[in-house]
């Protein structure tokens, strides 16, 4: 009697090939990562001393209108320690912060002394506090010392709305004021203002105020920038 043979369905292999696939993938990834490390190892980016400053692109006001500004465009990547070059002082402010208000004068003094060797950049951010709302007009007035708000403590103007921006201590700040954002604050780990950072000409952080409590910016500039001249 003839037997009917059932058609065999293809069966999977006995061993689990997913382990082989996993090892193959691991090898590919290892090779690629070795390639990356050899050709272009990732830089340590951050606001801490020795790290490459976090780059940003934002609008900047330099006295006439708001134009795009990219921090890394100010870096001199060829610079080497001991060479002359333009250092960068970054100041984070909130136009409504009382300490930033009074720091206006010391920044003017610093600029008078160091503007030949140091590029000054102020980043205007908005702290998440009531009465700290600001706009471009307020930032422009803070920088230029032009009339904005009143001198009455009515919430209108700079310094938590206590002062007309034209009365900010110091002189007109003749440098770029950048429109800050929450992303820039996050990248730079800014939790309060004012906050200062000094960058080497090649963009690496040379001095971070948060890491040097007790050292004034004047002393830091003398030590870090002055010492390099």
């Amino acid at each position, binding site marked *: 009697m003839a037997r009917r043979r059932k058609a065999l369905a*293809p*069966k*999977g*292999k006995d061993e*689990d*090939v*997913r382990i*082989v*696939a*996993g090892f*193959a*993938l691991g090898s*590919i*990834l290892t090779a*690629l990562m070795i*390639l*990356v490390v050899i*050709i*272009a*190892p*990732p*830089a340590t*980016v951050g606001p801490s001393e020795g790290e*490459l400053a*976090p*780059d*940003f*692109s934002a609008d900047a006001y330099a006295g006439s209108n708001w134009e*795009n500004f*990219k*921090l*890394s465009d100010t*870096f001199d*990547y060829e610079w080497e320690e001991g060479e002359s070059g333009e250092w960068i002082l970054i100041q984070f402010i909130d136009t409504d912060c009382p300490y930033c208000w009074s720091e206006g004068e010391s920044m003017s003094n610093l600029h008078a002394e160091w503007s030949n060797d140091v590029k000054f950049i102020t980043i205007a951010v908005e702290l998440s506090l009531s009465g700290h709302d600001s706009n471009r007009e307020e930032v422009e007035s803070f920088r230029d010392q032009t009339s904005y708000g009143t001198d009455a403590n009515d919430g209108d103007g700079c310094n938590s709305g206590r002062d007309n921006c034209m009365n900010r201590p110091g002189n007109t700040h003749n440098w770029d004021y950048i429109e800050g954002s929450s*992303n820039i604050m996050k*990248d730079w780990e800014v939790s309060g203002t004012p906050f200062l950072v000094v960058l080497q000409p090649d963009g690496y952080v040379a001095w971070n105020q948060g890491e040097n409590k007790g050292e004034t910016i004047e002393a830091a500039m003398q030590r870090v920038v002055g010492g390099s001249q």
Partner: protein
Amino acid sequence: MNEALSDPILISFIGGLLVSTYLMFIKNKNTTNLLMSSLAFAGVGIISSTYTYIIHNKMVVQGTTSFCSSEGFIQCGSVIGDPQWNNLLGVPWGIFGVISFSLLIFLSLSLYLDRHAKWADDYLNYSWWASLVGLPFVALLVVIELTQVEQAPHICPFCTVAHLSLIGYVASIYYLKDNKLNSKWSEQE
């Protein structure tokens, strides 16, 4: 011709895409070739993503790179060098590409090694859905290149290779699903 398009590395990537496409259509779209095609697309994708990550690192540390042009419409400098758009939550897009294509390689390689395993149906579906998830990101990145980066519009050629790799992968998985549906999964059937 735009300088960026004559880059020998870019030409190699384009060659890889052409080979992957050829594998997809030869021999009446049989399963073995389609699996090889999906692997080839994912391979080109992972290597091009790694290359964009290398360019990213060069741009961060040196501000420029000889690996890709920074002039003209087709270029990388203004795209990968844009600090606002060259990352997602601080992670460079190239890293996302490497991770995504790693997953796709694992799924396709597992299927290639044993298409009759009991998990094969699931893995084919995972490949399909995982690759589809990537398509909105490709669309987003193209919009960013054309409208958001510095002095837009621009097209980054190596990023485009990674995007096309994903689209090619989706196509090969689509045909594989079709083979499965029409009992052409096993070439003996």
